[in-house]
């Protein structure tokens, strides 16, 4: 365990340079918490259509978004907000951010998201 932790920390320290030339390595869960405090809400989108929401936590020395709601599928074409299991819009639920907020977190407007999805870009 301690060895594991030291190993991870060391890797984090030495990895910066080699990381830079390794192409588009990404982790949405880590990026979603880059400028957030522990316990703050976070969300991210996988494959242009899977919507993850949760809170920022530190796991094994890394701050990342820990999902605590079921994964939702976004219908960006009709710009609808994901619904919960009772069929209600999650936009009414204070736990959820609006789609626009999510896209803003990823540096996109809803329109840009739709275009990106139409072009089959993944982010």
């Amino acid at each position, binding site marked *: 365990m301690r060895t594991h932790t030291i190993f991870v920390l060391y890797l984090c320290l030495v990895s910066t340079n080699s990381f830079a030339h390794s192409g588009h*390595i990404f982790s949405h869960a880590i990026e979603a918490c880059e400028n957030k405090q522990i316990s703050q809400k976070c969300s991210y989108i996988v494959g242009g259509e899977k919507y993850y929401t949760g809170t920022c936590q530190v796991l094994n020395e890394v701050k990342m978004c820990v999902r605590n709601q079921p994964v939702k599928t976004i219908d960006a074409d009709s710009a609808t907000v994901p619904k919960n299991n009772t069929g209600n819009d999650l936009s009414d639920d204070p736990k959820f951010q609006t789609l626009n907020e999510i896209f803003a977190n990823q540096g996109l407007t809803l329109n840009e998201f739709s275009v990106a999805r139409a072009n089959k870009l993944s982010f």
Partner: protein
Amino acid sequence: MNHIYMLVILFGALALVACNGTEDTLSTGSDITSTSSEDTTDENNNATTTQIGLNPDYFFDSALSEPIETTACTLTDGTETLCYEIVISGVPSNNEIGPFCPTHIDDDATQGGVWFDGSGELYQLDGAFIVYTKTLYGDDWQLYDETTGEVFVTDTQIACEAAARPNVDPEYQNHCVECAIEYYGGGVAQKFLIPASPIPLSTPEQVGADLGVALNGVVIAGPAPVSAILAANTIAAFDDCGGHINPAEGYHYHAALGCSNIITTLDGHANLLGYALDGYGIYAMLNSEGEEDYDLDECRGHSDDSRGYHYHAASAAENMFIGCYQGAQGSVEIVQ
């Protein structure tokens, strides 16, 4: 919703592929009712959540180096209490370890394990994925010999240890990394001290490198450091159970893929797969209807009358089990 159901089917299929090993003698189908429980009270002596502790009978006997005993222990918050001492032998009792890396780019999914990088995707680690890493991760990725199609795999102990160290030997960059449990005495024994009755915390605490133990005797680890692994142009391959081997800890899980969900609940709730270091149970992500709960807290836990407070594992694609601890933790150490 179609995608969610597809994921469920995928995970179910993976679990079937991965868990077709030998059956143990433990009877399944029992409900979580015989576990020791205790009500806690707040400062006003009002009853709060029922604390339901670990049930040692749920572990496979063959997963353990010695029978589970109770012993005095001190938890992370300073509480002196009684803990279960669980000593695992370091190999899963109900299925084989591996396979991890495919050896040729023509290999199919049965000849390799899985890979997840925390981006929300779970990849079958077959030969095609080895080729795909160049597209996925960058042009400097070359995990196979373009002439022969052979995958660069760390297939000796020297290679495994040169690649599974912080300063990856440049010779073993651009490798699919795997280690054999035979290099480490056939399994690394570890001793867990887990409170017999969980002690709730007022604020959650962070998860570290290891966070619990599965019922089949495998260490449940925190997220794999996939960014660092990828930075060395390596894939630290997982088998179809979400586990792999490193020289320090032996075999351990980074994801819940159904291989230790051996206690079946009767009320439709997800199955128990193991316990966290704070003594709370960790259950699979989905219930018998294939659905996930909506009321999980930031640690991915919630309470019910039968189970008290407990956690639900995240999906393998998320590279994690739980988000934090809601209870004071015991400890885990390697048995020398």
